[in-house]
């Protein structure tokens, strides 16, 4: 603890300012009347109004894209974590032919530029009658969510002590029981991290959602916000209000999981 200002802390302040200021600006502006949106400097809130939020939910029915986003991102994350954990476990602990090939394949799939996947996925989804459906978004989302979660979880599971699991197997647990009783509780921080990142990725996804939905009843939040823009005007106030509303579930998810990511969970298993 020193009172002397150091160059490092100045840099830190600048960094914090750089990150925090846009967020502050968005929140402050979303509560500001239309006429004051372009004030310079834009910071001081004097007359607060909730007009933008009212318009957002009453005229634009923003709860609909929010619900769509929650359903799609939530189901994708749940599926990606369940399948991803099982896959990552098999890839780290079981020995089978072509294991590295699978791992490389998983990585290769996630290398493809997203936009190159749109036409084939569109044709496939149309053939399956899945355009403009939740399933029609969850399935394509899994194409990036699964590689992401598998790679994160493989990295995490690899550093868990294998002997603890061996001990469980000898204690009479089957592979699945060892996974459930021993590996998962220890891998929880890794699973939570993978869940957060997958959810964020799905929540912010724009291209697939724009390409595979046809109307407001299935638009996700990012698509809906992008389409707020009218022919003659851009409703900045409502866009900013929507941005604030859209951020809230993400913050909730991060806070919910972050608490569980306790460091040193594996302490004491080994000789120390």
């Amino acid at each position, binding site marked *: 603890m020193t009172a002397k200002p150091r160059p490092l802390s100045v840099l830190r302040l600048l960094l914090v300012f750089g990150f925090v200021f846009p967020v502050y600006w968005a929140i402050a502006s979303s509560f500001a009347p239309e006429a004051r949106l372009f004030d310079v400097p834009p910071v001081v809130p004097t007359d607060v109004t909730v007009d933008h939020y009212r318009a957002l939910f009453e005229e634009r029915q923003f709860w609909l894209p929010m619900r769509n986003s929650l359903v799609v991102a939530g189901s994708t994350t749940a599926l990606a974590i369940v399948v991803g954990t099982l896959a990552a476990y098999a890839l780290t602990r079981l*020995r089978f032919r072509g294991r590295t090939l699978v791992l490389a394949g998983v990585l290769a799939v996630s290398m493809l530029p997203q936009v190159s996947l749109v036409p084939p996925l569109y044709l496939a989804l149309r053939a399956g009658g899945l355009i403009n459906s939740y399933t029609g978004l969850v399935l394509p989302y899994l194409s990036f969510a699964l590689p992401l979660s598998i790679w994160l979880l493989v990295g995490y599971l690899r550093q868990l*002590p294998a*002997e*603890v699991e*061996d*001990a*469980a*197997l*000898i*204690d*009479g*647990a*089957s592979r699945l*029981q060892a996974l459930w*009783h*021993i590996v998962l*509780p*220890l891998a929880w921080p890794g699973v939570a991290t993978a869940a957060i990142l997958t959810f964020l990725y799905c929540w912010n996804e724009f291209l697939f959602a724009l390409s595979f939905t046809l109307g407001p009843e299935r638009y996700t939040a990012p698509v809906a916000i992008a389409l707020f823009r009218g022919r003659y005007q851009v409703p900045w106030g409502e866009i900013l209000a929507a941005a604030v509303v859209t951020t809230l579930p993400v913050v909730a998810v991060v806070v919910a999981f972050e608490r569980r990511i306790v460091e*040193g*969970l*594996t*302490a*004491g*298993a*080994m*000789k*120390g």
Partner: protein
Amino acid sequence: MSIGLDRITKVFANGRVAVRDVALEIADGELLVLVGPSGCGKSTVLRLVAGLEAPTSGRILIDGRDMTGVPPHARDLAMVFQSYALYPHKTVAENLAFGLRMRAVDRAVIDERVRAVAAALRIEQVLDQKPSQLSGGQRQRVALGRAIVREPRAFLLDEPLSNLDPQLRFDTRAELGHLHRRLRATMIHVTHDQEEAMTLGDRIAVMRDGSVEQVAAPLEVYERPANRFVAAFVGSPSMNLLDVTVVPGAGGRPMVKGPGLSIEAPSMDLEARSTLVLGVRPRDIAIVAPGRGDALARIDLVEPLGHEVVVRARLDEGRGPGITIVVGDGQGRAPAEAVGLQFRRDRFHLFDAGSGARIM
């Protein structure tokens, strides 16, 4: 429970041969110690018996039945790991109970057995704590307790004492001996510590580079090592191994000659001019006046240990190879002093210079 390894070979995916054609029979209730330098494959043998690894060829027999492909949980063995491998997210009580829960034992029985084992191992007061809160000795006892509580018919112990400090190791070693006598369970104990092997085992199996070099009772291994490697590995300080040649001596009796060393061969039927390795344990050499005895040497270093003195010397008046002698007391011996060495005739070991196999 008897355990048999029938010509087991294990080659890892990277091509390393960890276990080479090992055949072992462990009788019901026997304590066999697998001993050898690190990397000799002894832990792999244990993992093969446990079912954590599958052999590349050969069979694992339990009570005479082929169990080679049977998963670990169906073998009814318990294992104590070198790292202890406790479940870090579970309390000590839950750690102990886990194996019984997996086997769907009645809850009341579990509680009773956990309490009994905790009392026997003096860990009752830490039952509610997590492994991270325990001392090394307590963790070791929990690991042991987790094996005992299941009342398995065989124990596999993978260097369970190596992470304890010397005093604790000494005590726990004695406890392990008691435990074996009390439970009458079959045990395979892996260690790199030859002293631990000597004190604990009914028999010891000495391993090197994936092969078993000798299986015998501890004293047999000490007194009649099967080859040069076992001779050097078992016993502390190590046996002295000297390159010698056999020459015809006066009166037709062959002589064993080395640098600064000339001894009447203990047997007549040694081929003249053959090169051999002579093994003499440090405690089988006496220090005598220079010019007497079998060899001349010059003292390098005197290490008094209290109950005995380790003397390091060089043969051939300081020009030859080093030799270690252990005597009851130093009797004023000092470095640079020239001495004679008298070897005990009945404690000679002779090994083939090429193969290292015991000749006599």
